[in-house]
C-alpha cells in the first residue's frame, strides 16, 4: 500500500521535473532568437520607444509552406503632406535573418498599404513596425503557424 503511494508520488514528481526541463529547453532557443530580432530592430530604429497600434497585419493563420506567405500591411494614416508614414519594416522573429524587408512610401503614394510574399522558416511571430513623419514608431505582431518551413530542404521552388 505504502509502496504504491510512494511510486505514484515519484512518478508525479518525475513528470513535473520532466515538464520543467522541457519548458527550460523550449525557452532557451526562444530567448536566443528574441536577442537576434531585438538586435535587428535596434539596428533599424535605434532605441526610440515603440507603441502598439495603428498597423493592421493581414497574414494567414496557417501557412502550409513557408516559401510564400502572403502579407498585407495597412497603416492607419491620412498620408497628407504633414502626416504620413515614412517607412514600414517587417521582421520574423525565428527566421535565420529576422529582417524581411524595408518599405518606403514616397510623396506619390496614396495610402500606406502594401502586399507582398515572404518566407518563414517555421511557426513564429511576424512583426511589422511603422515610422511616421513625426518620428513615432508603431508596431503590430501576428503569429503564423507554418507546416513546412522555407529553410527545410525542398527541391520545389515556389
Amino acid at each position, binding site marked *: 500500500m505504502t509502496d504504491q503511494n510512494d511510486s505514484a508520488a515519484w512518478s508525479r514528481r518525475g513528470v513535473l521535473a520532466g515538464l520543467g526541463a522541457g519548458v527550460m529547453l523550449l525557452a532557451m532557443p526562444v530567448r536566443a532568437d528574441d536577442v537576434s530580432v531585438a538586435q535587428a530592430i535596434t539596428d533599424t530604429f535605434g532605441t526610440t520607444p515603440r507603441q502598439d497600434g495603428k498597423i493592421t497585419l493581414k497574414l494567414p493563420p496557417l501557412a502550409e509552406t513557408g516559401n510564400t506567405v502572403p502579407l498585407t500591411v495597412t497603416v492607419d494614416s491620412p498620408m497628407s503632406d504633414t502626416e504620413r508614414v515614412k517607412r514600414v519594416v*517587417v521582421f520574423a522573429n525565428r527566421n535565420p535573418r529576422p529582417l524581411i*524587408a524595408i518599405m518606403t512610401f514616397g510623396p*506619390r503614394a496614396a495610402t500606406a498599404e502594401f502586399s507582398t510574399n515572404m518566407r518563414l522558416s517555421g511557426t513564429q511571430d511576424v512583426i511589422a513596425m511603422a515610422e511616421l513623419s513625426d518620428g513615432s514608431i508603431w508596431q503590430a505582431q501576428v503569429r503564423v503557424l507554418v507546416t513546412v518551413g522555407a529553410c527545410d530542404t525542398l527541391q520545389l521552388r515556389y
Partner: protein
Amino acid sequence: MPNTRIRVPKTAKAGDAVEIRAIIQHPMENGFRLDSQGTPIPVEIITDFSCTYDGGEVFSVKLEPGLSANPYFSFFLKATKSGPVDFRWVDQDGTITTATEQLDVT
C-alpha cells in the same frame, strides 16, 4: 533580362488611389539551401525595388532574402496627371531592370 509583369490601370480619375502590382521573375536564393552535392547555394537576390511617377517616388523596398522567389509588390499610387509609371529593380550584382507603363488621368 528577367521577366517582369506589371499591372497599372489604363485610365484613372485625378485624386484616385490606383492599385499597382509588380512582379519580377527571380530565384531570390536565400543562401541557406543546399544543392544535390550538399554544398550551399550562394545568395542571389534583388536588393532594391522602386516605383516613380510624376517626378516623385511612390514606393520603394530594400529587399532581404526573407522575401519569396519572384518578389511581388502591390501598393497604391495617387493619380495626379497623365504620364509614365516607372519601375526599377536592382540585383546584388548591380544589374538594373526597368519597366514603364502609361497611366492616363482624366
